[in-house]
């Protein structure tokens, strides 16, 4: 024992004359670090209720609960996370996975309450003092628990694609599809948004499992056109996909296509459900487009005898005559239609109602009639000179190309319009070797066409002139040419909200000469096959009508669907109309069964 060892310990007293380490009121004097993982904050306005936080929570501390204020919002499940602080371990994974970046943590860490229920709260809905806290844990920039970028779709190069009408998109391979399928968070918001309510999360799941036959079965439950929709669907699902809020949405459409691509047509019969035994009922369907065939498929599944009347020589309607084959090859459309006919749906081609068969006779001979004749008449611009011979309709050009006819467009064309038909007409014209200018009255961002289509259109060398309002068509010197006069527009904000409106600037007019002008500004229905009385009776309003529940019209036996009976006028809505009408017709044919069922349920 040395003297040093006896005296050295007394150095402890040095510390007595220094500042203490502790603070007097720790929770007040020392707030949590700026990135502290404290109590949860949810910006409920940005939250879409995808439930990823609930999924990732390893302690089941998060429940998604319905919040009145957000019920029924588009692209929103109406649910918000509720936290159980008896279970939460403040790991912050919920913040990391949050697709909308709405969930975050405050740096508040002290909370005293004598009400145990207050530790069970819906962040952002139940009022908590830290809700407006600026600091706290946020997901760091560049940190992801889910890849934000989608797998690029392999595509033909623009030069390559211009050479032929070959399909532009090449489809995912298995590895790509699995990787893309992996990005899905299985929230199901897409299911609610999809007009056909396709079971998206589950068929994506089947890709991850590699069980494509199951995927196909799932798709056929709600959609008998998976090959088609896998290529040209307007995919409203992707626009609400929460993964797309911070990154790119899951490529739902391409995944759907991938499943179909994996299954051979000849296996369809084996994989998919067969119709139930015949019921003896007969249903007539007018129009073999997506709406009509969808109704036909599901009615046939229910055991009814189905006959489809189609004016054209082949089925598919707008899918065949309105969608160019570089987007939807005929073989793929045939894959869908062939399966529908293979289960016993009879399609009578070249049978125009009102000419070959009378509508009234259908009413007489069938137990129910489903009409889905779509929008087949191009709208007119109602400007002077519109009836010029070199003003062609976009729809006509597409139909011509689909039927291998030469539309005779020349070498320099102008396309008027900003919808998908305009883009298709432009791209078809490019493939036919023309130089294409697209005139659109609003901005490119206002175009109703698919963003992808606009992009590809530009890639393929079409010039888009936005804010160009056509005012007059003028004869050119040459009969084979035509002049168009158009004025530049400036966009004026609508004071009542709504989209900005273009206003013509009369001092900025241009006149150009083209070989032809393709007008693609919309379509309307052709109801010539119905007598005036019937049109009146069915309550058509300017070529459209709004059906009652189950697509039922005011006429007892008649159901409608498709573009002329809905607002959205796209394939997937038509398909859902058909499916819905099939359900309605089934109820209509078996009223006793359904009333008994309802009684049982009540």
């Amino acid at each position, binding site marked *: 024992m040395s003297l040093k060892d006896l005296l050295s*310990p*007394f*150095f*402890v*007293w040095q*510390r*007595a004359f*220094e500042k*203490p*380490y*502790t*603070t*007097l009121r720790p929770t007040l004097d020392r707030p949590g670090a700026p990135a502290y993982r404290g109590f949860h904050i949810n910006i409920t306005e940005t939250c879409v209720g995808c439930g990823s936080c609930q999924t990732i929570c390893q302690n089941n501390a998060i429940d998604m609960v319905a919040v009145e204020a957000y019920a029924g919002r588009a692209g929103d499940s109406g649910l918000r996370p509720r936290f159980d602080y008896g279970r939460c371990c403040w790991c912050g994974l919920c913040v990391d996975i949050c697709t909308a970046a709405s969930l975050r943590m405050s740096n508040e860490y002290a909370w005293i309450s004598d009400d145990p229920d207050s530790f069970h709260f819906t962040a952002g809905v139940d009022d908590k003092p830290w809700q407006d806290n600026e600091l706290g844990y946020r997901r760091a920039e560049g940190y992801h628990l889910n890849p934000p970028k989608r797998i690029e779709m392999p595509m033909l190069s623009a030069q390559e694609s211009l050479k032929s009408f070959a399909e532009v998109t090449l489809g995912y391979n298995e590895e790509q599809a699995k990787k893309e399928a992996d990005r899905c968070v299985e929230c199901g918001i897409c299911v609610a948004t999809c007009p056909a309510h396709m079971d998206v999360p589950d068929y994506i799941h089947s890709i991850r499992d590699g069980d494509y036959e199951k995927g196909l079965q799932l798709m056929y439950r709600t959609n008998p056109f998976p090959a088609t929709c896998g290529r040209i669907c307007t995919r409203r699902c992707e626009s609400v996909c929460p993964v797309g809020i911070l990154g790119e949405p899951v490529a739902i459409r391409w995944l759907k296509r991938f499943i179909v691509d994996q299954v051979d047509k000849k296996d369809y019969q084996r994989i998919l459900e067969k119709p139930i035994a015949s019921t003896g009922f007969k249903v007539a369907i007018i129009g073999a487009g997506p709406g009509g065939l969808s109704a036909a498929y599901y009615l046939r599944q229910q055991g009814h005898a189905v006959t489809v009347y189609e004016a054209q020589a082949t089925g598919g309607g707008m899918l065949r005559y309105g969608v160019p084959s570089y987007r939807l090859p005929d073989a793929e459309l045939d894959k869908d239609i062939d399966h529908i006919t293979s289960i016993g749906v009879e399609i009578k081609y070249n049978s125009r109602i009102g000419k070959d068969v009378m509508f009234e006779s259908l009413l007489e001979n069938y137990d129910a009639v489903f009409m889905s004749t779509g929008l087949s008449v191009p709208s007119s611009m109602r400007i002077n000179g519109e009836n010029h011979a070199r003003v062609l309709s976009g729809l006509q050009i597409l139909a011509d190309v689909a039927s291998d006819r030469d539309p005779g467009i020349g070498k320099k064309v102008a396309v008027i319009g900003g919808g998908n038909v305009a883009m298709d007409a432009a791209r078809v014209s490019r493939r036919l070797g023309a130089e294409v200018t697209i005139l659109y009255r609003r901005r490119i961002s206002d175009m109703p066409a698919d963003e992808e289509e606009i992009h590809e259109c530009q890639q393929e060398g079409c010039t888009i002139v936005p804010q160009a309002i056509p005012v007059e068509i003028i004869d050119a010197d040459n009969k084979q040419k035509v002049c168009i006069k158009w004025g530049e527009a400036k966009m004026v904000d609508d004071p009542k909200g709504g989209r900005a409106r273009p206003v013509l600037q009369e001092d900025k007019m241009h006149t150009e000469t083209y070989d032809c002008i393709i007008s693609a500004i919309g379509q309307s229905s052709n109801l010539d096959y119905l007598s005036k009385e019937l049109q009146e009776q069915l309550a058509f309003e300017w070529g459209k009508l709004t059906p009652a529940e189950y697509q039922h019209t005011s006429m007892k036996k008649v159901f409608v669907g498709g573009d002329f009976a809905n607002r959205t006028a796209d394939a997937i809505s038509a398909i859902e109309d058909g499916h819905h009408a099939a359900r309605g017709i089934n109820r209509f044919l078996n009223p006793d069964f359904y009333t008994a069922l309802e009684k049982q349920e009540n």
Partner: protein
Amino acid sequence: MIVEGLGGWLSKVGNFSLTLLIVTTYGLLMGAFIERIIAKVQGRIGIPYRQPFINILKNFFKRTAISHGVMFYLGPVFRIAGGIGTLAFVPVIYGDEMFSNFSMAGDLFLVIYFMFFGQLGMALGAGESGHPYSAIGIARGLSQMTAYEIPFALAVISIVIQYDTLSITQIVAAQQGGWQNWTVVTNWVATLAAMLAFLGMMGYSPFDIFLAPQEIPIGPPTEFHSAYLGLMQLNRALFGATKLVLFMNLFFGGATGWVELMIKTFLIYMVAIVIGVAFPRFRVDQGIRFFFKIPTLIGIMSIIYVQMVLTS
């Protein structure tokens, strides 16, 4: 005469009650102050001054639901009785009739007895709990006490010889007239022995053997609870202060006023603290061996010193 005697007695009891109150309060306050000093060394702010009072009040308002037998509960009662008893015979303020308590001719012996009494009561009570740790704790406490009592007793004997009296009041009286008359100066050997024993008596490191929570966690503070723990805490303040007053009286010239008392007792207390915060704890055998060696030796030396130097 009888009436007068009774009246005197009554006023003595009243005076003692007042002393008791003052000493206890002082003990609690000084406890908090010492805690804050220790905290300062440890880099903390420490407890507020009201904390000891709050602790005791809280404990007094708690009730117990289990029973280990009568002796178990009598332990703390014995303990505080020992504390009060010790104080009763220690004159607190020299020359002040009011705060001289029941000081009398042989009070020094009585006080030493009472100091032991509380510990024994505690030993019986804690032993009743039946937990082996209690037995170990008691064994440790009693062995350490025995060990430090030896140098302490030797030192006391030394000053008893020196002042030729068993009355604390007279011992204090003998030290009046300036610091050069204090025992610490006149008989520094005995004071040294007593102060080393004092380290053991106060139970700070390195002699906190019987409290050692890392070794025997189930000691008295854990076994007793509610009001019994309150009694023990109260006693700790009271008994601690009383011991300090006793040491002040025996070795540091006593006090003629409260301020003097506070300064002296605080400084005496600090001796234990200065060492306590710096050292770890001895093992029980090391601790006992320590007291049997140097302090005992010094104690014997102090008697020799008194015999040879002071009384010759």
